[in-house]
Structures are given as structure tokens and as C-alpha cells.
């Protein structure tokens, strides 16, 4: 065993007593293995990782138990020893590579610094080593990356730079905390590949933290499943994926969105009337630079978009970040004005929208009932009308009427998304724009919300525009799928055709890189 943790307990002092984040867990990491630590948000997986690096400190936090690494207990080792171990023996990479890089220092200098912190070599040698590292993480134009500031790099490049810094001293253990969650699927695959290759090359172990069983399936040798600060199940990957013992693990596995194994037969939506017709729609934004805000160029977010959205059906709008899918959603609903082209809608008044982040889409200073009823209040509805509408719509989205006086922060992420859906439904729309409605939720909650949306569609005969970066999720929602890239729709076809016979190379690439769910029963 490279590292063993015994009876590890972590608790945080808060205003109202103590919160136990980790409640006594035991686990070990073998040399050269990838250990997948899986759990939902709040399960304690990230604090566990931070405690291994002894990055949890302060008087409000208590860490108890023992962490053995190379014959030393990391929890009682002196600060000097810990500083030596960090970076050279144990290294870590994080979810958000942008906030982990200093924005005012060139990327190359930062890697030099990491090298110089532990090795007594000249600056020139450090630079040479940095180039070597950049090559190791498969960055081809090292000169450019070395001289760039972090904001000029793409998300994938930034994560590669972070990995280069992490492995600069050849650590024996790499802790990766959701390193691909913020990245597009096509980039994700490359980063996972890189981590696996480096593991072999450098003979290191990897503790890979994620909420996504799909990724675990691709990368891990062994799996730990965490829930509410406890390890509920552990074992070899094959064992857990094929025959999970715990109810919770089964539930997690079941909730992982999967690509349909075969082209699912669905009703061909061609017979339905169109509620929205989009013709030759264009939208661009100007890019301004410098203190005089001179226009330096234009970004084309929508290029010659032609669409028909059919009544009672779901149109899936799929693309990676920057593909223009959110812009198109905002154009449809009128939050943005198009440069040219037209949007013909049969019922322009009855369109509503649900956003991705249920934390920023609800006004934190309003009570739940005021949020849900805002549309009716604006329309001047009377007291009794609002009261009955509130009961009805809360019942539909499975929220308790008794919670109507609570504020948004008193609800969980899934409940907040239900509130956002209720707010949209309260004004009885015909069409809902769903802009990544489940992307920021845990898988189990994701599944609940998707099921709810399907129920509502059937019950209220709603038309959905479902925007997502995840083809797996769209596979279960959409009747028709439009794949977007750089502001253009590169492929538009009924669901079964997209998944069974993708035509465009980009669609094929998206499908192959997102296909990790396969193999999970």
C-alpha cells in the first residue's frame, strides 16, 4: 500500500454546531493503480482529498485519525516534512484550472517556479525542464504556451499545464479532483488519456475523484463509493460495475445517462405542425479591445440557422461551449435580438425558459411563492387566483406547499431547479426552453428532473427546446437533435438517425468521446 487512511474523520465548526463531513473512513491506495472515488456533491470526497495533502487547516476544522504515507503519519508530520511531500511525493490537480493559475504571470514562469521550488537548478535549466514537461503533457506548440498568459489558453490547455506542474517532480501519487468536469467532452477524453499515459510512464498512483460513473468506467482500476461522509462500497471496477451490492451504488449506476445501445424506435415527428419556424437566423457579437474599445472583430454565434420546432415534441440542441446553443435559445425567447433572419412563432407569448444554474436563476431575496408567482403578479392576477395557481403548480413539480415561505438558499439544488420549472409553468406556457437544466446537478437528481420534465410534457402537451452539451442526456429527451458547432447547425436529424447513423464527422466525434456509459449495465 502506498497510502492508507485509518478511521479518518473530518468535521467543520459552524455557527450552528459541528458538521461532520467525513465520518470515519478506511481506505488504501496501491502503487500504480487508479482509485476512483465516486460520490455526489456533499459526500465528502473533496475534503478527503484535501486532507491527504493536509490542505485543511484553521481552527474551524478538525481532522482525526491517521494517514500513512511512506511510513509517516501525514496528520502528525511537521510542516517542513509536509512541504517536502507536497509536490514531490503527492501532487494535486483541481476542477477549475483557470482559478488555479495566477492570471498575471506567464504560464511558463509558473511552471518554472514549481520546478525551482523543489530543485536547486539554474533558471535556464528550469526553462529547459519546463519545455520537457510541456512535451510530456502533449502540448505541441510549447513556445506559444510558455509565453502566454492563462486567459489566452483553452480549458483543455490550462488543465494540461496544471498537470505538467503537478507531475514536474515525478510524484508517487497524483490526486485529481474532478479534473475534467468543467471541460467539453471532446477535450475530456484527451485529458483522461493523458492521465492514464502519465500514470504508466511515471509509475504513479492516481486518486481520481468524480461524480461520473462514466469516467470511472474509463479510467479506474478500483472504486470507492462515498455517501454522506462514509464509504458505502469498495472493490474492483468490474465487480462494482457489473454487480453492485449496495442499493445506493445501484441507484447511482442506474442514473448515469447512457447512449442508447441501439437506435431507439420513436415516433417520426414529421407529421406534427411546427410551432416555431426559424429562417436564415444570424447573430454576431463584436469583440472590443483596448481602452478605446475599438471593435477588433466579430464572433458569429448564429450563422444561417434554419429550424422547425414541432408541437408537443422535444428538439435537442447539442454542442460544446462556445457553439452558440445558448445564444440560439436566447434568440428564440427574445432575450437577444437577431441581426438578420426571422423567427416565426405561432404562440409568441407563451414561451418560458429554465436556466442551467439554479443558484443564479432564483432571486435570493424572494420567498419561494413570490418567485413562482412572479409571472402572475406581473399579469395582475388576483389573490385567490394566485393561491390556487401556486397549489396547482407546486403539486405538478412535486414541491411541498408548506415550503412556500422559504428562501432559495433553504432548498437543495434539485428543489431549486423544480422551483425554476414551477415559475416557468405558472404562466401556462406552450413552449419551454431548457438551457442545460440538469448540467449542474448530481446524477440521481438529474434523473429525477429529467423524469419530471417528461411527465410534464405528456401531461401539459409542452414543446421543449432542450439545450445540452451532453449527447447522453439528450438521447433520452429529444425527438429531434440539432448538433451545433461554431454557430452553425452541422447536423439536424431525428434522434434515432443521429445515434445510429451520424453523418457529420463532428457528430461522430462527439458520440465517440462521450460514450463512456457503455458497458455499465
Amino acid at each position: 500500500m502506498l497510502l492508507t487512511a485509518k478511521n479518518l474523520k473530518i468535521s467543520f465548526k459552524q455557527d450552528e454546531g459541528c458538521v461532520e463531513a467525513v465520518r470515519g473512513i478506511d481506505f488504501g491506495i496501491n502503487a500504480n493503480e487508479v482509485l476512483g472515488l465516486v460520490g455526489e456533491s456533499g459526500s465528502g470526497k473533496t475534503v478527503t482529498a484535501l486532507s491527504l495533502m493536509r490542505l485543511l487547516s484553521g481552527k474551524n476544522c478538525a481532522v482525526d485519525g491517521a494517514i500513512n504515507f511512506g511510513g509517516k503519519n501525514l496528520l502528525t508530520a511537521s510542516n517542513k516534512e509536509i512541504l517536502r511531500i507536497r509536490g514531490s511525493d503527492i501532487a494535486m490537480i483541481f476542477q477549475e484550472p483557470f482559478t488555479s493559475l495566477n492570471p498575471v504571470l506567464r504560464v511558463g514562469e509558473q511552471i518554472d517556479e514549481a520546478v525551482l521550488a523543489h530543485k536547486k537548478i539554474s533558471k535556464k535549466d528550469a526553462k529547459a525542464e519546463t519545455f520537457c514537461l510541456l512535451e510530456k503533457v502533449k502540448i505541441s506548440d510549447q513556445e506559444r504556451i510558455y509565453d502566454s498568459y492563462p486567459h489566452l489558453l483553452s480549458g483543455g490547455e490550462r488543465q494540461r499545464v496544471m498537470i505538467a506542474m503537478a507531475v514536474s517532480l515525478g510524484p508517487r501519487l497524483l490526486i485529481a479532483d474532478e479534473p475534467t468536469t468543467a471541460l467539453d467532452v471532446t477535450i475530456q477524453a484527451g485529458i483522461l488519456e493523458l492521465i492514464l499515459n502519465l500514470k504508466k510512464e511515471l509509475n504513479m498512483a492516481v486518486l481520481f475523484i468524480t461524480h461520473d460513473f462514466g469516467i470511472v468506467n474509463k479510467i479506474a482500476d478500483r472504486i470507492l463509493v462515498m455517501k454522506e461522509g462514509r464509504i458505502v462500497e469498495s472493490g474492483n471496477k468490474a465487480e462494482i460495475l457489473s454487480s453492485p451490492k449496495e442499493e445506493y451504488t445501484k441507484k447511482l449506476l442506474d442514473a448515469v445517462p447512457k447512449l442508447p445501445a441501439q437506435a431507439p424506435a420513436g415516433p417520426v415527428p414529421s407529421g406534427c405542425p411546427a410551432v416555431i419556424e426559424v429562417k436564415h437566423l444570424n447573430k454576431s457579437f463584436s469583440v472590443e479591445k483596448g481602452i478605446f474599445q475599438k471593435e477588433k472583430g466579430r464572433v458569429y454565434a448564429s450563422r444561417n440557422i434554419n429550424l422547425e420546432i414541432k408541437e408537443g415534441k422535444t428538439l435537442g440542441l447539442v454542442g460544446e461551449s462556445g457553439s452558440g446553443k445558448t445564444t440560439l435559445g436566447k434568440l428564440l425567447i427574445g432575450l437577444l435580438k437577431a441581426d438578420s433572419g426571422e423567427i416565426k412563432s405561432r404562440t409568441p407569448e407563451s414561451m418560458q425558459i429554465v436556466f442551467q444554474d439554479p443558484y443564479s436563476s432564483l432571486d435570493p431575496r424572494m420567498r419561494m411563492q413570490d418567485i413562482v408567482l412572479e409571472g402572475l403578479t406581473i399579469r395582475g392576477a388576483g389573490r385567490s387566483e394566485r393561491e390556487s395557481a401556486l397549489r396547482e403548480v407546486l403539486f405538478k413539480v412535486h414541491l411541498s406547499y408548506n415550503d412556500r415561505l422559504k428562501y432559495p438558499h433553504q432548498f437543495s439544488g434539485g428543489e431549486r431547479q423544480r422551483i425554476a420549472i414551477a415559475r416557468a409553468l405558472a404562466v401556462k406556457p406552450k413552449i419551454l426552453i431548457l438551457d442545460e437544466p440538469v448540467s449542474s446537478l448530481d446524477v440521481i437528481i438529474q434523473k429525477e428532473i429529467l423524469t419530471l420534465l417528461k411527465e410534464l410534457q405528456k401531461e401539459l402537451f409542452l414543446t421543449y427546446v432542450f439545450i445540452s452539451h451532453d449527447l447522453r442526456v439528450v438521447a433520452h429527451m429529444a425527438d429531434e437533435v440539432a448538433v451545433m458547432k461554431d454557430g452553425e447547425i452541422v447536423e439536424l436529424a431525428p434522434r434515432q438517425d443521429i445515434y445510429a447513423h451520424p453523418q457529420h464527422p463532428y457528430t461522430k466525434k462527439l458520440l465517440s468521446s462521450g460514450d463512456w456509459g457503455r458497458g455499465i449495465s
Partner: protein
Amino acid sequence: MNKLMLFGGIVIFILITGAVLAPLIAPYDPTDINIEKALVAPSVRHILGTDQLGRDIFSRMVYGTRISLTIGFVAVGIAAVIGVALGSIAGYFGGRVDSVIMRFVDIMLCFPSFFLILAVVAIIGPGIYNIMIVIGLTSWMGMARLIRAEILSLKERDYVAAAKVLGAGSSRIIIKHLIPNGIGPVLVSFVLGVAAAILVEAGLSFLGLGIQPPTPSWGNILMEGKATLGVAWWLILFPGLAILITVLAFNLLGEGLRDALNPKGSE
């Protein structure tokens, strides 16, 4: 809650109670002249002494609290209404509206405000209403900038977009969604502003352009004491201390509020 903030809060509470209950607390009529007892040093009958007309200083100071606090709150209230209204309009609408309003703010900030207040009061005449209005009209710019900055970031939130989609107009979005969420820093600035306004009033009264005798205010008690400084130290010391402690209390409360409202700033 921070201890210093608690101290500030308690002092302000005592001051407000004193101002409200002034007729019950003050042992004498603050304008009652008694030449025989002029310039009596602090004693049991006159705990803070008397002035050159024999008026009881403690009574005058208690009534002076009313004037100081009223001017502080009303003047800053006027400033807050103007500042929040203009700042939120500038922040929400942006573009030309924003440029015009914010350049006006810049222009107003160019004048040294105390001299501007002095000049205006000299022209329109002293008096409690004039002073409150003039202080209010010259101290709203900071609040306008604060709320504008808040609104610039808040207006990009999804809940604002959701409200637009539901059909909410600009005024509803500003009043219902943006101002309640962005008012925190203005609240802090409000409390700090009260302290500043009390100082300005004291300064004006000291220069003879503020509250006119015989109405007592801390500033004009100080001014009247200036003539007899050599023989009656109590005429200067007590009103001076009152101003000091009050301004300190408001500043402590304001700083405490700032920390409480900004979780990133606190430890």
C-alpha cells in the same frame, strides 16, 4: 457579531433613546437663561456646568442630540434616495444614460463639498431644513457609484433574464430584483455617511452658518464656548466628546456591517 460593532450599536441606541426622551431626561429648559448662574463649573446641580448665559449644558446637549441625529439621518436619507435612484438607473440601462449620469457624478465630486455647502448655506441662509437638504444634495455620489457597480454585475444574473421572460418591466426588475440584492454596500455607506453628516453640521454650526442660537446643537455649543475657553473648559470638552463618540460609534457600526455583509472579507 463583532464586539466593536456591538459597542457602536449600543452607543447609537442610547443616543437615539436620549434624543427621543429629551424632555424627560433634561433637568432644565435648554433655552432658560439665568445670568446669576453664568459659567458654573460641573457640579451636582449642573452636571456638565452652565454657559455664559447660565443655561444648563447637559440639557442643551441632550436637545442637541436631537438636532445632530435628525440632520445625520435625514441628510443621508436624501443622499441615499438620490444616489440609489440615479446609480441604479445608470447601471441598469448602461450606454448613454450611464455616461450622462456618471459624468454628472464626476462633476459633483470635483467640488470640495464642505466649501460648496458653506457657499450654498451662505446664500440661501442657515436653518435646519436648508442644512439637511444641502448636505443630502452634495453627498449622494458615493452611493450612486456603489449601487451602479453592484447592479452592473447583478443584471447579468439569470433571475433577471427569467423576470424579463415573464414580462417584467425595467422598473419592476430594478425595484424588486436589483436594488434589494445590491443594497448591502449602500447600507454600510449610509451608516458611515451619518457620521460624516453629523461632523459637517457641527462644523457649520461652529462657523456660525449652522443651527442658529438659541436652538442648541453640539456645534453651536462649541462655538459659544470658544469665547470663554480660558475660564470654562467644560463648554468645549463635553460637546467635543459627544461628537467624537457619536462619529466613532457610527463608524464602528458601519465597519462591522461591512464585514458582516461581505463574507469574503471576514476571517
